[in-house]
Every structure is written in structure tokens, then in C-alpha cells.
């Protein structure tokens, strides 16, 4: 659904490329996770997808079409993106906010159609925020706000969903709920691309992990293959061990103290 091939991105004035030859695929009905340290190029890939940053080399295809051939509006109908930051300048109700997800489908003079209302109602239900529909956006908790943002993206009715660091600032319960939601949506057929810092959670929920290091792919594949202590130690420059999570059986990273305590 989303496919980067040998992608290179250079920021103006930066000495080295932020993304340097990255290839990755995000197929339908799977959770694909992009992980890596700060500054490894994860969010740059999202900026390229959004069209906020051009590719210096390589290609990006969305649903088989070159990204450069897609208008911004056409992209928004194919891929729903939840960027890291997003906040209404003026508060509105949750329902009004989620309905903004219909913008890529609406005309300049057209009123909300029954189809729009259905899509908004479905998005509110799937994210479990229908009870919040009349609440002002500036009175939501962090966890509620993240789910409402995902609802806004789902209202776009796109076959792919991109979540950029969706669980920053969330407690363990809300974090789990969001990963469960991403996993459920993928099982429902969506191509889900997850950019995250949460190695252990990603290892439990993702079908494929792509580990970036300084703009390059350090490892890619199923979590069992990517979660290797040797690779992760080198990428994160920190001593660690990989164990089996006793509850789920998934690989989990345990960072070590540098000085024995």
C-alpha cells in the first residue's frame, strides 16, 4: 500500500542525509512499525509521505501510484495520517473535529452528506469515543485526545493509516488501548504504519518491524528477527538484553545499567 524504495532525503544545510537509502513496504491488513533512536529518520519518512519534504532520490509509491503524481487531496483519500502534533487553534466539539476527516471528500459548497455522517459515526464508534462527541477538544485528557485524533483519521475512510508516535505522553493503559486499536484496524484490512519509540509494545503488535539507524535500515523483518540484542545494542548505543516477555512470549528489550548497581 505504501512503499518506499531506496529513499534519500536531505534537509537543507544538513551535512548528511536524514534518510539514506531506505526501502520499506507497508502492506494492507498488517501493522508495519518503524522504530529507531531519536533522529534516525522515522518522522522524516512521514514528512515525505505528507509531501512536506521532497525525496532527493528513490521513490515512494502509494497504492501503486508515484507519490509525486498524487495531489494532496488524492493522497488524503488513500492514506490517513495522524501527525505527531495537531491542535485546533480554536476549540470545537469532538464530533466537529472528527468530521474534519471528511474534508478530503467534501466540495467547497456542499453540506455534510449522509455518507459523511455515517463515516464520522463509524469512526467515533471504532475508537470508542462516541460518548465524548459533545465535549470540547480542549477539555480532553491526553488519552482521549489521541483516540479522537485517530477517529478523525478513520473518518477519512482511507485504506491506509499512519500513526506518528501515537503514544507519547500516554500511560500504560492508554498506550495498550491504542496499540490494540491499531492491531484491530489492521485485522480489519487497513494497512497500518506505526512510527514508535516503544520497542517492546511494537514487538508484540507489529507484523513487521523496520529498525532505522541514522537514516539507514539497520534491520527489518518480523519482530523475532529484528529484536536481536547485538543489533539493538549497536543502534541504541546502550547495553541491553533481549528476553522473552513471560506473558506474551514476544521478544522484549531490557536496557542494563552501565555501572553495576
Amino acid at each position, binding site marked *: 500500500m505504501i512503499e518506499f524504495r531506496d529513499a534519500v532525503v536531505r534537509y537543507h544545510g544538513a551535512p548528511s542525509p536524514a534518510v539514506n537509502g531506505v526501502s520499506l513496504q507497508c502492506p494492507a491488513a498488517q501493522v508495519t512499525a518503524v522504530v529507531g533512536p531519536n533522529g534516525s529518520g522515522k518522522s522524516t519518512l512521514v*514528512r515525505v509521505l*505528507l*509531501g*512536506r519534504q521532497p525525496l532527493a532520490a528513490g521513490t515512494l509509491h502509494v497504492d501503486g501510484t508515484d507519490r509525486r503524481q498524487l*495531489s*494532496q*487531496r*488524492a*493522497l*488524503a*483519500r488513500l492514506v*490517513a*495520517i*495522524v*501527525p*505527531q*502534533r*495537531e*491542535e*485546533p*487553534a*480554536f*476549540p*470545537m*466539539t469532538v464530533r*466537529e473535529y472528527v468530521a*474534519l*476527516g471528511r*474534508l*478530503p471528500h*467534501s466540495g*467547497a*459548497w456542499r453540506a455534510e452528506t449522509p455518507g459523511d455522517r455515517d463515516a464520522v459515526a463509524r469512526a467515533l464508534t471504532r475508537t470508542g469515543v462516541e460518548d465524548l462527541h*459533545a*465535549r*470540547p477538544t*480542549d477539555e480532553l485528557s491526553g488519552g482521549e485526545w489521541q483516540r479522537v485524533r485517530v477517529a478523525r*483519521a478513520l473518518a*477519512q475512510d482511507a485504506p491506509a493509516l499512519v500513526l506518528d508516535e501515537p503514544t507519547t505522553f500516554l500511560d500504560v493503559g492508554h498506550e495498550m488501548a491504542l496499540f490494540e486499536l491499531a492491531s484491530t484496524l489492521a485485522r480489519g484490512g487497513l494497512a497500518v504504519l506505526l512510527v514508535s519509540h516503544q520497542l517492546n509494545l511494537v514487538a508484540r503488535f507489529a507484523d513487521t518491524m523496520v529498525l532505522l539507524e541514522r537514516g539507514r535500515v539497520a534491520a527489518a523483518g518480523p519482530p523475532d528477527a529484528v529484536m536481536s540484542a547485538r543489533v539493538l545494542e549497536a543502534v541504541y548505543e546502550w547495553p541491553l538484553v533481549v528476553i522473552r516477555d513471560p506473558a506474551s512470549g514476544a521478544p522484549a528489550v531490557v536496557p542494563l545499567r552501565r555501572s553495576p548497581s
Partner: protein
Amino acid sequence: MIAHRAWHWPAAVAVLLLAAALGIAFGTVRLSLAEVMAGAVGTGDPLHVTIVQALRGPRVLLAALVGAGLAMSGASLQGVLRNGLAEPYLLGVSGGAAVGAVLAYAAGYSGYGLLAVAAFAGSLTAVGATVLAARAAGHGARGDPRTLLMAGVVVGAFANAAIMIALANAPGNTVRSALWWMMGSASDATWATGAALALMLSVAGGALVAGARDIDALALGDEAAAALGVDVDRAAPRIYLLASLVAAATVAAVGLVGFVGLIVPHLVRAAGIRRHRALLLAAAIVGATLVIAADTVARVALPPAELPLGAVTAILGVPFFLAQLRRFRA
């Protein structure tokens, strides 16, 4: 959160029409509403016909258009710049217009048409300078809203300095005329001015309403707007320019009228309208009503003197605004 109701729309239009009728009725010669109607269709006392058709009619129309334009301009800029303190003159419209008008006065021109052209040209020059300065500072064609705000402030300061230098050694009557112009007045209204402003408003204001979905998205931030299908680098500058064009046209017609463009969008949002297509249309109705009322007060408060329109809009608006302050969230 307050939701607006369908009956608010006809009610607002009714209040606007009432304000227009009262604006025509009030003045040195007080007319009844029946006399206003008779004058409008050309029957009735010839003096009343002249007052309605040649004097107060065009003036009320002009006031309405100015209010509508400023309110739409302010609402658009507040949305795109994501800032509740944004107002129509922000990008240099007022300073540029004043420089244009003062230069015209200083050069000995005082005809209404030439002043309007000079003010309009001055506005657009200043807005161009602001947008180019912000673009030169980086952040792509959209510019960082904060950089744009700062560029607007700096261009405004430059314009103020230019006005002071131009007026420092100017003859007394030039200073007085220029100062009076800067305070805003609809007293020179003609049907032709009204028609010119109506044309500008229907084109540029219509384009703003047609692009209101982009403003909805841009008010969430650039990345969210891009995610919702908006070409940010094209949509944002287009809205800056359209909003400034509308503001410049009002300034060319009546001079500077503050407060309306800042406050009316907040009033409309507090009434529960948050999507920009409805917000712009409602702001136009409320802004028109407010400026008609302010212009009527400016004419009748201290006869035979006229008060500056810009001062009256603020004096009428501030208490109302303060009373509503707790309902505003920006």
C-alpha cells in the same frame, strides 16, 4: 459547548436589515420607517427621497460592506495564522494604506478617488513586503506564522515612521485631513464607492468562503492540514492575500476601522459556529450590523459634529466584548 441553531441565521439577517433601516432613519432629519420605505422606492417627500437614496442609503451600504469585509478578513487570518489576536490589518494593510494616503495628501491630492487608489496601492505594497520578508526568512512559501506576524509588526513600524516623517513638516490642514482619514469615516459614501467595494468583496470574499475548508484544516496546524489534503504552501499564502485584499479595499473606501475584524469572529465562535464557511458568512452579517450601528452613532451622537467611525466601533464593541469575555476561548 454551545451549538448554533438554524433560527440564528434568519434572526441575524433580520437584525441586520433592522439596523440598516434604522441607520437610514436616524440623522439630522429623523425619518419614520414608513418614510424610509417610501423614500427607498422613490415615492414620498422629495427631500426624504434624496436623503434615503443619495445620502444615507449609500452610506449604510458602505458601512455594511466595510463591516462584512473586515469581519471576514479577520476570521480568515485568525484561522490560518492560528491566532485569536490576528486582525485584518495585521500584515501591513493599515500602515501601508496610511502611508499611501498621507503621501497623496502631502502631494496636494485630496480627491476621494485618488486617495482611495493611493491607500489601496500602499496597502498591497506593505502586504507584499511583509509576505516577502517572511518568505525570505525561510519556512517555505507558507512562512512560519510567527515570522509572518513579526514581519507585519516591523513593516507597520516602518510605515508609522514614514508617516511621522511625512507629517512632521506638513501644513496643519494636511495633518488634520490625514489624521481624520486614519480614524475612518463613511461620510463620503456614494453608490459608486459601494459598488466598487461590493465587487471586490464578492470576488475576494467569495474566494475566501469557497476556500473555507482549507482554513478549517490549516487551523489544526500545517502537518494536519497536509494530512487532510490541503496543499499548505499554496493555500496559506492565497488566504493571506485574499484577506488582505478585502481589508485593503475597505481601507481604501473608508480609512481605518479597528476592532471589527478582531472581535466579530470571536463573537460568532462564541455563538457556536466553528467551521469556517459558516463562520465567514455569519461574521459578515454580524460585522455589517456592527459597523452600520457604529456609523449611525457616529453621525447622531454629537450633532452637528461626526465622530470617527473607528473610535465608535471600539467604544460600542469593547463593553460588549468584555461582558462576553468568559465565553471566548482562543
